[in-house]
């Protein structure tokens, strides 16, 4: 794994949401309980009547505008209140690192906890320019959109601690040194920890402006090996996930869902299910029939005994073979929405003496996070509490409210660590959270209820990476210029969601098609179009979204073009990347580290390949060395170069890349969801195989 160091100032200017809005914000000091130390939040000037849009924190006793980001406590801990879900990507380490840096804290005193659901305070700043005002984790934005916010939070807290020490010691604040969570003044012979000064810091005025550190002086951000804050709990079984929540009197539910997508409950017979020992309730909810038991085993046994008749008049009954046949025809039919266009691709292709043609068929893919979807709800007359690995906090809040029959501000979201998500827990309908809220409502809030999806529920449950068909014609002209025409056929991910209104552009769903060759290379003549398929199988973003298929077909064709022109795959790519300095740098770095200029040992079945792609603001280049024997593919080595801007926590970036490579190989070598007559053919890991 290799990192290219990017100029930090340049990246800071590029990332971090909307700096203009941030500069209008000021940090607000929260003084809740005397002696509780310093808590800093943000306030939006001019918002005198509570948060803009969305729901507030139900039951919150603090100032309505007081949104905590960092808490310095008398016990000398510094807690970062994290607006994003930790699902393995390392945000519980990355966000505290940003605060610790500006605060000059010691890494050992850093703690992290999940923020409540709250917009605008905890909204994802990266999506505000797209017109999306929601708290969620997605689009590889957690660190980038928190960067400015948390640097200011840390710097403000530091300034107030310094002011407290200056006042107490009667010395000029400029003479105080802060290091590793300790303030000191050598001449006065004084020193104090953050914890000792937390109380008096809370009584200081909040500075209107603070100076952020010169990146050259960073000592935590960029540190090669900064221990993850969650490693110990996750190595000892102590980490709490939604499935581990225990509440007094809590029951467990499983749901029988329609065997085909779009099916509905016609009638059901609960007699046998209710006879199963431990089953306490069987209730119909909008998505099926829920069986509630005193434990998972009784609920599951109860579901096996349940008889449901389904109304399948509106169900999707096509299989994937049939769908792909239709997609192939659509890929040859009427040209649909144009994604990118430049020059005259038809003329250029007509001129070409040698064309490269490619057809690509990508299967549906399940996310299959290790923790199957799980959520807990406790409904009382005036509120509904939810515990889940929420990826879409304010959207989950609204959906839970609608399902439970309460107001959004009456829903309290408790975001727990998610046992993986890869996009699955972020869906506009909050499927599993709406389900648990529906069950709580249908059972009258008699008991807290925990909903568990079995692995079979997960694998057959839809919201897959869409099935896709690509058809590409490309050619290299005598002048070295490339003509590239691509047709993509697939379902829309956001087309039927509230995101469509602001995110669909000219009839194109950017989450279905994007990152195409003309967007990533300098191509003279290009045309990429997208034809939207309408299928009843629910689809969703799946780790890196459209790039999973778009990067694949693009890089395969670019490689074949290099081959057809008799050119080296790296040199050929570089010749098309003149306007893409970050691609160029990543590709050069990976070629160097992989020893691309050295002859590859000639061995039967052994070869190497290279690819470069930008997605979500990061550019990644990889060289894979592979051995093929018969139908067995062995990936011997992958060399990876990544330009992700500032590597706040380099070892977490390294872990993410290792993870992405493994997840990608799973899909490329093994992963496939197929349907026959509308029924999903796979049910568990023996059929939906993963690495």
């Amino acid at each position, binding site marked *: 794994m290799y990192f290219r160091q990017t100029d930090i100032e340049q990246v800071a200017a590029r990332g971090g949401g909307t700096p203009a809005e941030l500069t209008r914000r000021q940090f607000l000091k929260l003084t809740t309980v005397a002696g509780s130390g310093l808590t800093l939040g943000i306030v939006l000037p001019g918002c005198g009547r509570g948060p803009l849009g969305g729901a507030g924190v139900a039951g919150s006793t603090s100032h309505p505008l007081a949104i905590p980001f960092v808490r310095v406590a008398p016990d000398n801990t510094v807690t970062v209140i994290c607006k994003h879900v930790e699902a393995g990507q390392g945000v519980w380490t990355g966000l505290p690192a940003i605060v610790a840096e500006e605060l000059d804290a010691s890494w050992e005193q850093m703690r992290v906890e999940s923020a409540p659901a709250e917009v605008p305070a905890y909204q994802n700043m990266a999506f505000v320019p797209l017109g999306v005002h929601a708290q969620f984790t997605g689009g590889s934005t957690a660190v980038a959109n928190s960067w400015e916010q948390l640097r200011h939070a840390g710097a403000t807290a530091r300034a107030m601690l310094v002011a407290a020490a200056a006042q107490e010691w009667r010395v000029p604040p400029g003479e105080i040194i802060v290091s590793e969570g300790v303030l000191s003044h050598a001449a006065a012979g004084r020193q104090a920890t953050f914890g000792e000064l937390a109380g008096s810091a809370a009584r200081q005025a909040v500075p209107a402006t603070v100076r952020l550190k010169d990146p050259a002086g960073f000592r935590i951000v960029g540190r090669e090996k900064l221990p993850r804050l969650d490693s110990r709990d996750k190595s000892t079984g102590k980490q709490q996930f939604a499935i581990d929540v225990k509440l007094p009197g809590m029951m467990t539910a499983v749901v029988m869902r329609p065997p085909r997508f779009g099916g509905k409950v016609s009638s059901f017979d609960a007699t046998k299910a209710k006879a199963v020992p431990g089953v306490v309730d069987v209730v119909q909810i909008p998505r099926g029939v829920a069986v509630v038991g005193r*434990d998972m085993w009784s609920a599951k046994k109860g579901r096996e005994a349940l008889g449901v008749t389904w109304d399948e008049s509106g169900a999707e009954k096509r299989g994937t073979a049939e769908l792909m046949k239709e997609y192939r025809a659509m890929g040859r039919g009427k040209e649909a929405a144009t994604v990118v266009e430049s020059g005259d691709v038809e003329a250029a292709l007509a001129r070409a003496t040698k064309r490269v043609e490619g057809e690509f068929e990508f299967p549906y893919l399940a996310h299959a996070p290790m923790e199957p979807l799980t959520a807990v709800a406790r409904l009382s007359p005036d509120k509904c509490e939810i515990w889940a690995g929420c990826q879409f906090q304010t959207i989950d809040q609204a959906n839970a409210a609608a399902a439970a029959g309460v107001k959004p501000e009456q829903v309290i979201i408790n975001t727990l660590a998610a046992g993986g998500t890869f996009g699955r827990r972020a869906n506009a309908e909050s499927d599993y959270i709406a389900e648990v809220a529906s069950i709580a409502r249908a059972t009258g809030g008699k008991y807290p209820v925990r909903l568990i999806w079995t692995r079979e529920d997960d694998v057959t449950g839809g919201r897959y990476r869409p099935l896709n068909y690509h058809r590409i014609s490309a050619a290299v002209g005598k002048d070295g210029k490339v003509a590239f025409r691509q047709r993509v056929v697939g379902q829309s991910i956001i087309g039927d969601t509230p995101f469509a209104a602001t995110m669909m552009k000219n009839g194109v769903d950017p989450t279905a098609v994007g990152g195409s060759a003309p967007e990533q290379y300098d191509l003279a003549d290009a045309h990429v179009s997208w034809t939207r398929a309408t299928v009843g199988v629910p689809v969703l973003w799946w780790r890196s979204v459209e790039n999973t298929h778009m990067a694949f077909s693009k890089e395969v064709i670019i490689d074949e073009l290099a081959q057809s022109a008799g050119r080296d795959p790296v040199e050929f790519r570089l010749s098309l990347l003149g306007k893409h300095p970050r691609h160029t740098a990543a590709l050069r770095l990976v070629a160097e580290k992989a020893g691309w200029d050295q002859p590859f040992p000639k061995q039967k079945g052994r070869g190497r390949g290279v690819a470069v792609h930008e997605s979500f603001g990061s550019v990644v280049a990889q060289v894979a060395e592979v051995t093929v024997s018969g139908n067995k593919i062995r990936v011997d080595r992958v060399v990876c170069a990544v330009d992700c801007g500032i590597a706040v926590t380099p070892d977490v970036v390294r872990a993410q890349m290792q*993870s992405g490579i493994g*997840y990608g190989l799973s899909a490329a070598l093994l992963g496939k969801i197929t349907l026959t007559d509308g029924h999903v053919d796979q049910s568990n890991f023996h059929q939906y195989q993963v690495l």
Partner: protein
Amino acid sequence: MSIKLTVNGATRELDIDPDMPLLWAIRDHLELTGTKFGCGMALCGACTVHLDGQATRSCVLPVSAAQGRQITTIEGLSTPAGRAVQSAWVGLDVPQCGYCQSGQVMSAAALLAANPKPSDADIDTAMAGNICRCATYVRIRGAIHQAAEQLSAAAPAHG
């Protein structure tokens, strides 16, 4: 029906279905939630516990078959191999989402108890039944080697 289970050294009597998988008895009735549910078919290893020291998938083992055996869950893991594995896991920052890691740690601890110096191939074989969707496999292998080294350094010298 009354089922007697000895988990982490303590014996408890539970009034549960003898067919209930050990996993759900541990999680729902003994309230030890470190052991995870991942597949229910012994395909992913998230539910791995030790049964008389052997790594066992608790999601398919009926509680009746676990009676009279010594059951160890992640909460009770205290063998030298277990401690070495956990310390290597933390040192190398193996976990990402962390959900499968209890099972990974239990499998690794059982491997090192049986084979104190496993090769890469030994590790791959012993750990093949433990799925990690975050693909922490490279670090898992590294951490097992590190734990093995730590154990051999700590072991009293022979001869």
